[in-house]
């Protein structure tokens, strides 16, 4: 009886409801940018990992100056093999560069460009740009490097990755990784089933 009444009601509704589209509420177009694009500041620029954790379980980091202030500055080594006290075992695979290509003896918070200009460690991206112009250009247009936040800067800001977030400056190649789990649905066996159309 109930299904009958539903059927009758549905039939009646079909006749009545062949209505017209309702106007949808209009939403104004994006305004001018009101929020900034920030670049993340990786901790590794000003401190090193100790491998230990603090009382709250956060990784314990030590500022570069903590150790370097205990030793008189000496000339920079030309290769990692010469490291006898700090950063022993540091891996290095960044072209033909040597330590002094970027670092300044006795200065842990300063880097040096090829033309001798000194830059703050936190502005390390200025240094990267000297050689990696194509990547820098793409980065400036949002086509290189991860980001989070808003595409519409009139609504909210955006945070960009720093070069060093993904590329260890001493071993800059993007490291291979294990992928997240793949699909387990029935269409995802060996073949992609993307052909035959």
């Amino acid at each position: 009886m109930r299904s009958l009444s539903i059927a009758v009601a549905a039939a009646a509704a079909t006749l009545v409801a062949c209505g017209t589209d309702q106007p949808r509420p209009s939403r104004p177009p994006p305004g001018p940018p009101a929020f900034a694009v920030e670049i993340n500041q990786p901790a590794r620029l000003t401190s090193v990992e100790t491998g230990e954790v603090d009382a709250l379980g956060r990784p314990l980091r030590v500022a570069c100056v903590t150790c370097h202030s205990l030793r008189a500055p000496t000339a920079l080594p030309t290769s990692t093999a010469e490291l006898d006290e700090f950063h022993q075992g540091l891996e290095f695979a960044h072209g033909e560069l040597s330590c002094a290509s970027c670092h300044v003896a006795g200065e842990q918070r300063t880097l040096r460009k090829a033309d001798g200009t000194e830059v703050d460690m936190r502005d390390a991206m200025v240094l990267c740009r000297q050689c990696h112009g194509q990547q820098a250009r793409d980065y400036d247009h949002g086509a290189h490097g991860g980001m989070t936040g808003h595409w519409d800067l009139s609504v909210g800001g955006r945070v960009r990755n720093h070069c060093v977030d993904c590329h260890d400056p001493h071993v800059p190649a993007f490291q291979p990784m294990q992928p997240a789990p793949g699909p387990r649905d029935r269409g995802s066996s060996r073949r992609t089933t993307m052909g035959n159309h």
Partner: protein
Amino acid sequence: MSGPNRRVALKVVGATLGAGAFAYAGRPVAQWAANLDLDEVLTRHYKELTPEDLAQILRRLEAETQETYGVDVRIEDIPPQDGVSFGYALNLSLCIGCRKCVEACHQENNHDRRTNNSYIRVLEMEQGSFDMEKGTVDYDHTVPAPGKYYMPVQCQQCDDAPCVTVCPVEATWKEKDGIVVVDYNWCIGCRYCEAACPYHARRFNWRAPEIPADEINPDQGYLSNRIRPQGVVEKCTFCLHRTRKGLLPACLEACPTGSRVFGTLLDPKSDIRWVLEHKRVYVLKEELGTRPRFFYFFDK
């Protein structure tokens, strides 16, 4: 005398079994009728709903989610924004096939945990080949593998979308910001659209999604990531519940390489416009004339 009696007995037994089997076979229909809501039967097409009707439907869906999944969610209907036409580009030189986008989509869009469903499939392709038939999606080794490149494929939000054309009930359509949407309440589950899509971008809910309560994303859109019922088709919506509020899509935020570029094609200063104007971009299966809004490019 014994003959007719046995015949009658067998007839009675047969009839009883038959009736029992019929009742058992018809059980889903009875259950379906019991769960049927008159409001649901009488509802109009999404486009014909008044704001009041729609609000009522949203509240009903929220209550149903609470009942079924035990979670308080907020389901919104977010109309497209004026002056916005979305486009997406993907840099195949940067992509390493890590499936972080796949994972982010899975979580953001309340996908079924059992099948590990996602709107994105990453094809592992052979260097020197562009045959998608030869690509594999279930690779499970360190990436990027030597001699391979990776091509994530999701809904291309075609401007001439075959999936929309074939729908017999207009349960799927293109919105004015370029996103192709599905009304899960209107879809009859015929899967014509799934067959029509040359990019294998649509998925069918063979079962109602299984998601633990604490993993459900409570920020939901009626036309996007609300939990889909069983028996309907679903697809990528460029995360419209995020992007129509100015946010980047979840897959882009998850990408560790920055392969993904998203924005509005109508803003000449947008990143996506820069890519389209300065990179050598192409679309998948251009020869089909689907006019995708999803572009691919190589750096080198």
